[in-house]
């Protein structure tokens, strides 16, 4: 049996450091929002023979006076052109210019969002996060409604919520860093990833807490609370790691082989799920013991 609870202070230090780092990078750089939230157009263009340089494309589109135009290579014979677009006629003009110069080129992918749509997506996303938080908390309250001694049931809920905020903050922080240094943008898929992480993080924590509760109910009372928690952690440790392993295996498969469009989505999930496993082992249960010890001191 590993004495995991005794290592709690290291886990706290590690998590607090990561959380501060995340909050800092979020507040300094913020997330780099994609067209889902800013409005605009992203056009992936496949050229048949020689790939024009980015400058050539910028030159062709010069006349149109596009706002925040960027052109980047996308591997193979494709270029990614993105710009702010007030309405759809701009997209038609852009394409007219490019296909005029390169008649063989095809539009592999075009995503366009009007500003009204992006505003709406932003609002919907915030609401989704809000309702997910409410729903998860209601569920946690429900799942831990039975009072179990010696720690009150709401503290289990609070522990699960803190672990969950921790997982989400670190994922968002990671994408703030990735956005700043790698230009990775976040859109609606990122919100989907965050919500999935919310669900997964709670799922993991609940399994560990469930076992703690069971052991407390069945326990002889001889065992001290921190020991019960530690034993429960050990008993669920293999399951926690194995479950995360299978999920991480599938996510890695998606990340490596699944193609460009869902790469960042699976990356967000990978980060969130990994930290979700970590936090349900080291943080969530640690918090129970910490609150118990604070209670004793009183």
């Amino acid at each position, binding site marked *: 049996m590993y004495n995991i609870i005794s290592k709690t202070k290291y886990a706290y230090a590690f998590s607090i450091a990561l959380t501060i780092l995340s909050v800092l990078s979020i507040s300094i750089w913020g997330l780099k929002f994609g067209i889902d939230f800013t409005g605009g157009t992203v056009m*992936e263009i*496949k050229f048949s023979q020689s790939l024009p340089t980015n400058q050539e494309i910028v030159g062709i589109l010069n006349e149109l006076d596009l706002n925040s135009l960027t052109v980047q290579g996308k591997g193979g014979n494709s270029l990614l052109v993105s710009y702010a677009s007030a*309405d*759809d006629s701009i997209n*038609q003009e852009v394409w007219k210019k490019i296909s005029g110069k390169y008649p063989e080129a095809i*539009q*592999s*992918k*075009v*995503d*366009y969002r*009007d500003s*009204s*749509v992006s505003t*709406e*997506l932003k609002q*919907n996303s915030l609401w*989704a996060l809000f*309702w*997910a938080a409410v*729903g*998860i908390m209601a*569920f946690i309250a429900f*799942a831990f409604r039975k009072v179990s001694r010696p720690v009150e049931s709401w503290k289990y809920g609070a522990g699960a919520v803190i672990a969950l905020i921790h997982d989400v903050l670190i994922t968002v922080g990671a994408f703030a860093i990735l956005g700043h240094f790698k230009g990775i943008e976040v859109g*609606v*898929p990122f*919100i*989907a990833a965050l*919500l*999935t992480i*919310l*669900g*997964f993080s*709670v*799922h*993991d924590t*609940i*399994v560990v807490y*469930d076992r703690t509760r*069971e052991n407390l109910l069945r326990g002889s009372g001889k065992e001290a609370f921190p020991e019960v928690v530690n034993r429960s952690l050990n*008993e*669920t440790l*293999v399951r926690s790691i*194995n*479950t995360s392993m*299978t*999920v*991480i*295996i*599938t*996510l890695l*498969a*998606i990340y490596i*082989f*699944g*193609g460009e*469009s*869902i790469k960042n*989505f*699976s990356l967000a999930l990978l980060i969130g799920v990994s930290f979700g496993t970590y936090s349900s082992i080291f943080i969530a249960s640690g918090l129970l013991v910490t609150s118990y010890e604070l209670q004793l001191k009183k």
Partner: protein
Amino acid sequence: MTFRQKISVKFALVIILAIAAVLISYPKAVSKIPPVYSVLEKLKINLGLDLQGGIHLEYKPDLSKIDSSKIDESMQAVQDVIERRVNAFGVAEPTIYTTKSGSERRLIVELAGVKDINQAKNLIKETPFLEFKAEGPADTSKDIPQEMLDTLNKQAKQKAEDLLKKALAGDDFAQLARDNSEDPGSKDNGGDLGFVKKNTFVPEFDKVLFDGGLKDGEVYGQLVETQFGWHIIKKIEQRGEGDGLEIHSAHILIAKKANPAPKVNYVATGLTGKNLKNATVDFASQGLSEPQVALKFDDEGTKLFAELTKGNIGKSIAIYLDEQIISAPIVQAEITNGEAVITGNFSVEEAKSLVKRLNEGALPVPINLVSQESVDASLGGESLAKSLKAGYIGLGLVVVFMLLYYRFLGLIASFALLVYAGMMVSIFKLSGLTPWQITLTLPGIAGFILSIGMAVDANILIFERTKEEIRRGRTILGSLDEGFKRAWTSIRDGNISSIITSLILIELGTGFVKGFAVTLIVGVLLSMFTAVTISRTLLKFILGEWISDRLWLVGVKKSEIMEANKK
């Protein structure tokens, strides 16, 4: 039935389910039995546009001028019109529907396998928006109040009187005109109006000039008030006699201040393109000149048009096409036959193309493209191939992991997992036969692959628990029962949180998220069944006391049990 028989029946059912799942998800397995194959082969997964290539367009109708009770009707009309246009374009399976997004309405057009995206878009964009508007109350909000006008005009008249005195006193008339006249046409020539015949000017002016008895070079002794303002009139000379009499004059005008004539303010009448039955090209005069467009309304439109014309006799009704006024004829009489004519300066070609557009349907409200997602078919195919590869690799690795770690139990779990995957695919295929067809998108596949990883979680929970119970010294079958029983609450609670977030994601409603969330939620629910029921039935059927001597098969060491027993 004995316990053993019950298990046997259940086992048989599981096997049948597994075979059905295999057959539906992978019909090639029976490609040697043509009748079965041909039936099964018809079941297809409905692939999303991101996987088969296509275009997803979202239009926002401008409903601001529509009465809220008529919104549903208008949206239906918009959908019908666009449907007709798209069908005329000949796309294989267009999907056109309207959605609500908060308080807003949207029209969604999904076209699979369209080669020329811009052509499709233009076709929809060209759908005419036809609207009839009637004169509304004039807009007087920008008018100058009457009292202020009165004051201004008093000052103007005073100025005119001062000028008249100067002119009568012999000041240079031309110079006075140049400095003071407010008639832009004549002031620069010193107020000179040239020779005119009688009845050229407004009556008040005319009377003074022709009947005022002025001598050449004389300034009329009083101000002459006309609709334009106050005139100081000077006769310069005359020529001709009788009807040929022409008088050369000059004037100084001090203009009257008045509000501009009210502009006609047209308001919506409810009569729009949705009431149009058909349109034809017509010619105003005999022969082939002056083409015009004749409209025929449907019953509702005929009624509306009759009311409209009845209530607006002597006034104009404006016909707006794509929000531009194209003609505004004055109503002469009530029109009850439901026919109207658009005269405009059409060429024959323009009239013909307008008629064609109108006959394909005219919109009751203008629509605007607000969102587009289009994927080229080859890119879609590439995404499909890549994501399937990721799925096979993911599934394979999870199976390998489970076999290595849980050995015999892992084999059972892997079998349950394969049945799970087969059943998922079957559900996707069979959903096409129900009204709740599931469309598999790229994020949907991602959700599916992720659900494979999550599906074995239930098995892991159960097996870990079972192993624990074995170590505690229970019999294998007893441990297994205990494992399933104890793990169930965790499985249920854990999955509820995933279901909550998936439901919220479905509510969030955009394409990407929906595809992901739907497969995830179906996956979570189904995996609870496969991981628990299927693996339990299999284990109960296969396992017996024989395994007690081969505990390595379930990954438990004998020494561990000894230790537990010693305690």
